[in-house]
């Protein structure tokens, strides 16, 4: 019997190694896997590359991971927020590397990794400093920038419900990056509010098929 819910959060997170690339779901705090990030902080891995839309809020979660200097590099679209002071401080001190990626290029590069593409030509960012040094091409009269896939060793995502085969459903705008990050990581760990019996998720309504998820861990209600 395959049971992807069998590991504790700490056991699942122990797959993270120093130097890993980790995708973290969420748009602001919506969809952010707070408990998994706490487990990652507890775990102690260092020298991480984090792929996430933002660079942490307040003093918790990703912001705390950054504060503790465990993040070597952030790949994100919108680090600056009203409460991103830990990132801001470290960035100004040159204590953290930043690869700033337009949000849609972040999404498509993650998707490209999940879908096994070598790269894509995207119109976004053409002619801007975020395309500096990148290959460009005119295709059918429009200008594009070549972007490489972004893949990860681990994805940490938050969903609403999951089953022992790893099937997931999400809730409202907390879905955001979860489904595409699950596809782009070698190991995806999903925290869910509820683990449900196999077969209780309608096969028409599953958003992330279990093939993209290696561990499902419950955070209770």
């Amino acid at each position, binding site marked *: 019997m395959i049971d992807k819910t069998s590991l504790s959060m700490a056991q699942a997170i122990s797959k993270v190694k120093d130097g890993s690339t980790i995708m973290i779901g969420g*748009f602001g705090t*919506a969809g952010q896997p707070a408990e998994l990030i706490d487990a990652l902080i507890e775990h102690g891995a260092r020298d991480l590359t984090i792929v996430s839309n933002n660079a942490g809020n307040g003093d918790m979660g990703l912001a705390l991971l950054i504060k503790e200097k465990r993040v070597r590099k952030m790949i994100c679209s919108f680090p*600056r927020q009203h409460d991103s002071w830990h990132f801001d401080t470290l960035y100004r001190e040159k204590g953290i590397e930043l690869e700033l990626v*337009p949000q*849609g290029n972040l999404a498509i590069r993650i998707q490209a990794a999940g879908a096994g593409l070598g790269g894509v030509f995207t119109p*976004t960012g053409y002619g*801007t400093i975020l395309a500096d040094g990148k290959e460009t091409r005119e295709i059918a009269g429009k200008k594009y920038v070549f972007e490489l896939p972004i893949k990860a060793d681990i994805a940490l995502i938050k969903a609403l419900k999951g089953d022992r085969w790893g099937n997931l459903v999400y809730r*409202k705008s907390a879905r955001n990056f979860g*489904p595409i990050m699950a596809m782009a990581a070698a190991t995806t760990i999903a925290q869910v509010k509820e683990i449900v019996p196999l077969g209780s998720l309608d096969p028409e309504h599953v958003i992330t098929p279990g093939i993209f998820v290696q561990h499902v861990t419950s955070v209770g209600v």
Partner: protein
Amino acid sequence: MTIQPLSRDQIAQRVALDIEEGAYVNLGIGLPTRIANFLAPGKEIFLHSENGILGMGPAPEVGKEDDELINAGKEHVTLLNGGCFFHHGDSFAMMRGGHIDVCVLGAFQVAANGDLANWHTGAPDAIPAVGGAMDLAVGAKKVFVTMEHNTKKGEPKIVERCTYPLTGLACVDRIYTDLAVIDVTSRGLIVIEMAPGIDIQTLQNRTEAPLHYNS
């Protein structure tokens, strides 16, 4: 007659007039978000939020906020009957793929050729953050900009060439400021409306790029 610049709400109200029923619309953070308040209640207009919402409704009643139902500015919103959710891949396919009819963005500068600068002042100590602005700039069928006509120091924001880092090239279709509504065309900037009390010469004085008028 003294110049009567439009208030921020009046600018939002003016943009709302140009959004047609059935349009798929993305409203940027800040002033553009206010446009939603002025859309005619009888018109069905589809508001898109980059974080995976189509059919976004107004702010919820106090006490009914849901932290998992937020807009791109991370403010609480609601979902209309008939709205739906989707992931970031599909959301940016809507934006990049030309499926959004109108986006409305704020700006630091717009150039005479429609170049847009709205994400970065270029200041060396600024924390850069771009979000979805570049995707909207290249992807929306029409890009509208709302901004004050001049900076607080009185410098023009409608310029010959942007001095701030660009968001997108030749992408702006129409500019709404407190002083005028201006179309960006292949024949240059064409003023189509002016605020009460302002004359052509005064508007030009406050604008770096040359303005034209349909005669």
